[in-house]
């Protein structure tokens, strides 16, 4: 009796180990590991550009901006239009990045001053509905302005091709994305922790009334933060334009990933958004290998688990 139970348990264990070996066979291949790690990090950097703005905006304005994915899409579409104006691909690429960021900064400022400003005191459902309305409007506006077809942006010659190291072949443009994302993250850190306005922004995430009472122009601060967040998303879209199919519908997956990131990282925390972006980028990159058909489930499961165990997110402050 006892020995048969032992046998059965060891049989189950063998089966489990076999399954793990099947699903994780790639883990023994260092080339695959290195490639997926780099892919995960470069996707994480793009995610960070969207989620940093989303998180900042929630921290200061207390609004969960569902239109942020649409901002990313508009950044990519503006990049397509701007790049087409230049004969020199490198100049076109640089102008596309500037155009994507600047265009979205203007659009963000316009949306904040004309729409969001009116509903800061409204109940949550009104705020959610308004940003949802913007998603629908911008989604169709993109179709009306840029058409339904998918566009692409050429990448400058110096960023095409691949890097070779230790038997790993990796696209140069993705390495550039990692460098650009890291630079922007560092720049954002300096802006938030080493400048006067950065102090205002961090103070506003803690206590808006107190900041206002101290004589800081919070109206202007709100507009600036929303424009900054939108510009980051626009820049992210412009940076992603050469490696994604730019067309209507681009915003749909992007906003969900960004949403998962800010929830896991902690709403309002830019550092949390950075950590969670890398985490989700890597979970996606390796999840595809381990469970090819269920990688989507993994990200949502990650989010639900974090929300249940630590609702404020990894680095968020208490509710």
């Amino acid at each position, binding site marked *: 009796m006892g020995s048969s139970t032992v046998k059965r348990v060891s049989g189950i264990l063998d089966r489990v180990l076999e399954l793990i070996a099947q699903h994780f066979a790639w883990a023994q291949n260092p080339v695959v590991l290195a490639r997926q790690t780099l892919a995960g990090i470069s996707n994480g950097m793009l995610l960070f550009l969207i989620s940093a703005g989303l998180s900042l905006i929630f921290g200061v304005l207390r609004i969960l901006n569902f239109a942020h994915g649409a901002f990313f899409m508009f950044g990519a579409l503006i990049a397509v239009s701007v790049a087409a104006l230049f004969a020199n691909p490198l100049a076109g690429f640089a102008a596309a990045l500037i155009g994507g960021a600047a265009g979205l900064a203007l659009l963000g400022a316009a949306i904040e001053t004309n729409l969001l400003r009116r509903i800061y005191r409204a109940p949550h459902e009104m705020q959610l*509905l308004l940003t949802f309305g913007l998603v*629908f409007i911008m989604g169709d506006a993109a179709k009306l302005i840029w058409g339904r077809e998918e566009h692409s942006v050429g990448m400058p010659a110096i960023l095409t091709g691949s890097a070779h190291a230790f038997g790993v072949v990796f696209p140069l443009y993705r390495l550039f994305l990692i460098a650009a994302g890291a630079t922007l993250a560092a720049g954002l850190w300096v802006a938030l922790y080493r400048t006067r306005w950065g102090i205002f922004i961090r103070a506003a995430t803690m206590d808006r009334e107190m900041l206002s009472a101290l004589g800081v122009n919070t109206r202007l601060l709100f507009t600036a933060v929303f424009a900054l967040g939108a510009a980051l998303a626009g820049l992210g879209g412009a940076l992603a334009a050469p490696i994604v199919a730019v067309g209507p519908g681009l915003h749909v997956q992007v906003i969900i990933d960004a949403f998962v990131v800010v929830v896991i990282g902690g709403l309002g925390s830019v550092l949390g958004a950075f950590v969670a972006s890398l985490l989700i980028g890597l979970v996606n990159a390796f999840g595809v290998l381990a469970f090819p058909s269920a990688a989507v489930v993994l990200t949502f499961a990650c989010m639900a688990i974090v929300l249940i165990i630590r*609702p404020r997110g990894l680095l968020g402050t208490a509710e």
Partner: protein
Amino acid sequence: MKAQLAAPLAAAAALLALPFGLSDFWVFISIEVLAFALYAVSFNLLLGYGGMLSFGHAAFLGVGGYTAGLVVKQSGLPPALTLVCLPVAAMLVSAAAALVIGFFSVRRAGIYFAMLTFAFQMLLYAVALKATALTGGDDGLTGLKPPGFLAQPRAYYYFALALTAASLYVLHHIVSSPFGYTLRALRANALRVQYLGIDVRAHRLAAFVVSGAFAGLAGAIFALVNGNVFPGWLDWTASATPIVMAVLGGTASFLGPAVGAAVYVVLEVLISGRTEYWPLAMGIIIVILVLLMPEGLTGLWKSAAVRFGARAAPLPSQEAR
């Protein structure tokens, strides 16, 4: 007393006579209105009464819809039995889903509750997309038809009307009960309710399960008139639909969300029949709704009645929330 009864009786007579004046197409639309009226009122049990902004209510519409689809396609029961099993199964399964989701979600309030419910809806969306054997994956469950004689549109209309009316009756009973008043108190001041010795979490969970069960029933009714269920029902853009319906009608009255659902469904039919840019139209409607008429259609009606001197009930205060 007579005057009080006149309006409901007239409404009941109009709803009973409705299918005779309409083409088959509009009978289908009327059934859709019934399903979404129930959906919006069940949602408003949480938002309007309990002050809980569920951002994942589409989960239960979807669970109810898939359950109905599976009962019709897979159970192999005789039509008469299917008729009984359909609503019961849809409500039980979505109540069970609501119990699990609610157990984790109702511990949090405000925007965190909204995000938790949203996360669970997205989790179910991913499952609906990937559990192909059960849900049909991307294609969903197609070719669904009401069982037996209910395949006749007018017969199915009366079936849906009976289910919706009975559900609204039960829901109205619930919001007028001491439980309903406790929910309102929770919306106004949860901390104070807690100090009175009332189990806040249990009340919220109970409301969540009841609301989920009726949303599931709405999903079942809609699945069979729609003819198919697919993962899009659970997608993130679907989260906004019950909120738009409830706010459009007015969250401060019991039947307001039903009015909002009717207006929403009819607008969608009329606008999407003329242009492919229905999302654009809906976006504009949402922005106008939020900025200019946050009390919804019933709120507008009441303030108009006050302005023109009718003896209307005073406008319910929105400040409590």
